[in-house]
């Protein structure tokens, strides 16, 4: 009986700490970044710019005439390089070992337990310049648990942690094996069950109040003060009579995370696969007062519900293909829809994501979005500013400004050009990636075997690829789980039309 409140206390402490970001361990080393052009994403570009970084943050940014170079600073960069803020991933289910819990309603889960610091995904994030990543449970869930924000450096989850216990994953897309009705019922039941539990708790509290008071008096404790500190649900979006009587520590930890969701501690990331799911997700968010902290994770043809999303004013993360293809059921003509274009036109604030393994690099995603017709700034915002805001880190990351975390990329050219490479990545003032030293990239680019590996015999190579594939395969599995059943095949065979064959 004692163990549960103790653990709850630890968690509560963690929660309160989580309101501020966990910084990367710092030294006194100052860093100067020089670039032919700095694309600050917070105003006009700076030609021949310089960034001074101290204690992991940008302390000065401007032209090389404006910013002085301290004599003891490390200098990184060059006149041909382009500095750009690190990309922000608003939502991903990669980088985990075995995502997607089987239990339907599992708000008590913490992604911290499944993040794999050596996952190939994080290595790739550095290569592509993603410096802030929100890892959430896969979409194959009802209430999936809590995620966290990480940086792709460190050999332990603690080192990687930017913000623990961030966000709660929910899904209105039926979990595999579930019908839509049972999915929605399970979602409703999760909250109904919580209500029953709390009512029960309130009743007990009322019954035992006199006794508790007497005992406190006897022990010389000030119960009122105690309760004030740990008063549960003061700002919950629910109204439940007597709720204020319950000390936070009294909550069962299986229920506590849901209560915290209602209190607005977690952003709800709701996974949607169909326009119908969007409707359900928004209804759920409205019913429980979560709308202000809801983000929709959109796949497939959810863009059809763009007006609903715009009306609700919630931001979205695009996980599906940027171009949606479907066949008109009447005419049989194939129709392509450029999804970011629709969302932008309808006024939905959205972030691009790197879930598509073919177009994982955010720069490439943004470039494709521009190619599809989006204006350059909206496309760039979708991989920097918007995801930063979605993560509540708008003041920390997403642009290069004085006072912000020094997450800086140095590109060999325009970040949106196919020929541009990420040459350097600096995370919170620390140079953490250099392409010249990226052996795996050299291998991919030039076919050069990394040193200390066997000479290129076929058998070895296959073995190596099998291993390389392993993480890939896991990821594919994750993706499949995530999307549940295979995607519907819109293309209809002409042959079917004859009927009766």
């Amino acid at each position, binding site marked *: 009986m004692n163990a549960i409140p103790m653990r709850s206390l630890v968690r509560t402490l963690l929660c309160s700490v989580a309101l501020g970001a966990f910084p990367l361990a710092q030294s006194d080393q100052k860093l100067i970044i020089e670039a032919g052009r700095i694309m600050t994403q917070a105003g006009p570009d700076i030609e021949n710019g310089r960034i001074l970084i101290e204690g992991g943050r940008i302390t000065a940014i401007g032209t090389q005439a404006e910013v002085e170079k301290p004599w003891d600073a490390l200098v990184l960069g060059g006149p041909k390089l382009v500095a750009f803020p690190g990309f922000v991933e608003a939502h991903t289910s990669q980088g985990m070992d075995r995502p997607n819990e089987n239990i339907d309603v599992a708000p008590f889960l913490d992604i911290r337990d499944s993040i794999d610091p050596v996952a190939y995904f994080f290595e790739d994030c550095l290569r592509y310049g993603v410096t802030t990543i929100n890892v959430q449970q896969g979409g194959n869930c009802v209430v999936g648990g809590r995620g966290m924000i990480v940086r792709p450096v460190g050999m332990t989850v603690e080192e990687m942690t930017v913000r623990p216990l961030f966000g709660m994953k929910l899904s209105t897309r039926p979990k595999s094996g579930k019908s839509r009705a049972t999915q929605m019922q399970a979602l409703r039941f999760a909250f109904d069950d919580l209500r029953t539990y709390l009512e029960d708790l309130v009743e007990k509290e009322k019954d035992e109040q006199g006794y508790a008071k007497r005992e406190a008096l006897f022990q010389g404790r000030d119960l009122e003060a105690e309760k004030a500190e740990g008063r549960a649900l003061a700002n919950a979006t629910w109204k439940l009579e007597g709720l204020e009587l319950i000390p936070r520590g009294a909550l069962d930890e299986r229920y506590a995370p849901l209560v915290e969701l209602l209190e607005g501690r977690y952003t709800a990331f709701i996974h949607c696969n169909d326009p119908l799911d969007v409707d359900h997700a928004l209804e759920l968010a409205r019913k429980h007062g979560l709308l202000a902290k809801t983000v929709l994770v959109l796949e497939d043809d959810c863009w059809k519900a763009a007006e609903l999303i715009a009306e609700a004013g919630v931001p979205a993360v695009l996980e599906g293909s940027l171009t949606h293809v479907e066949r008109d059921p009447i005419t049989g003509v194939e129709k392509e829809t450029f999804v970011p274009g629709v969302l932008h036109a309808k006024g939905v604030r959205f972030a691009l994501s790197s879930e598509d393994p073919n177009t994982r690099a955010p720069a490439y995603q943004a470039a494709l979005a521009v190619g599809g017709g989006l204006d350059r700034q909206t496309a760039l915002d979708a991989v920097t500013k918007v995801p930063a805001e979605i993560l509540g880190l708008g003041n920390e990351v997403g642009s290069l400004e004085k006072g912000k975390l020094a997450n800086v990329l140095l590109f060999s050219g325009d970040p*949106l050009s*196919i020929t541009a490479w990420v040459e350097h990545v600096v995370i919170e003032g620390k140079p953490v990636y250099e392409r010249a030293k990226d052996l795996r990239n050299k291998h*991919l680019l030039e076919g050069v075997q990394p040193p200390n590996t066997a000479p290129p015999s076929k058998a070895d190579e296959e073995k190596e690829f099998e291993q390389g594939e392993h993480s890939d395969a896991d990821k594919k599995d994750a993706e499949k789980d995530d999307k549940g059943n295979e995607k519907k095949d819109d293309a209809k065979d002409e042959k079917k039309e004859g009927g009766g064959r």
Partner: protein
Amino acid sequence: MWILAASLLASLPIPRLTLDGDGDWTIHAKVVYPVSGKPIEDGVVRVDGTKIAAVGKGGGGDLECAAVTPGFVDLAVQIDTGNASVEQTSESVARLSVAGGLDLFSDEWRRVLESGVTTALALPADFDVIGGLGVVLKTGGPTLLAARLVKGDAVLRGAIGSQPSSGNNAPRFVEPQNFYYRRPTTRMAVEWVFRKAFYDTLQGEGADDPEEAANQAVLRRVLAGELPLSIQAKATQDVRTAIYLKEEFKIPYVILDYAVEAWREPELLKRSGVAVVLPPFPPDGRHDDGFVNDSYFLPLDAAAQLHEQGVPFALSAHGQRGAGASLADQAGLAQRGGLPFEAALAAVTLDPARMVGVQARVGSIEVGKDADLVLWSGTPFEPTAHVIGVLLDGKLVLDPRSR
């Protein structure tokens, strides 16, 4: 050449133009990339009927865009009818043409056309060792082959490596019950079938069978250099085998298709004078063809390496059409691997056209050639740029004004 064209254009009165979609067009671009010559800034291409009438500098046009390139030529478009595109009852069916099994109604044609591919080589699927004849055709227009055909018997298709043998069984414990038992089950036997076909041709073996005689007639054209031999050769050993076969039988024209690992054999490539069609670049550099278990490796700079060594090569999408995977995107990825822009452009236009002998009609923007043009919203092959317009035989099949 282009200067000549420019001065020619300057002296010509520009005629009144009709705008009904398949009349005459004047296309103005910030840059015209003729491929056969240097890029023309502030350039104009004039189309008269189905042909290019003039290329030059300056002036306005009916259609405005950032850049114009020739329509692309894809030597591995892979819009076939799958199994039904190749006759598997024999491992060598040189006499049969893929023309009999094309589906010109497939939506895929429109998709590749709108991605800028205007000319394509259609091949039988690689389930046979010698799978038959391929044809070069336009990707749009009427759905009749005769209307789209650029070159009938364009290449003879062969395949070595593991694909033609996969799925075949050796007869064990029972007598053979179907033709798959007869077919090769290993690389060695695939190569044997290949060589046997050529040996039989040289010696006239079995030519009293009319079908075999028809097969041999095709192989003789290959040996005489009238017909290029396109061989699917993925792994290093396949590339070597293909080159050894070329040298053994002195086959003049050999194209190594899907040559993932050709870059590993630069000396052999140069010695033998083969041309190479590269498979699409996988996003992570690794390649798994999904059909056999071998994984072959294609580095991102493979095209750049072949370019530096002077090996003729073409890029291909090999049936990929998703975002970032079209033929134009391959030209972008090849640049990411270090290939110069001009070479990347040629590798999707004039170089593949030359490989299959259709350069007189397509592959560059030159007066008299087919008016197959791609209009861009920005710098070609950049992901930020888009194919906004396509002309095929002078007909506007993707209208930049509707965007």
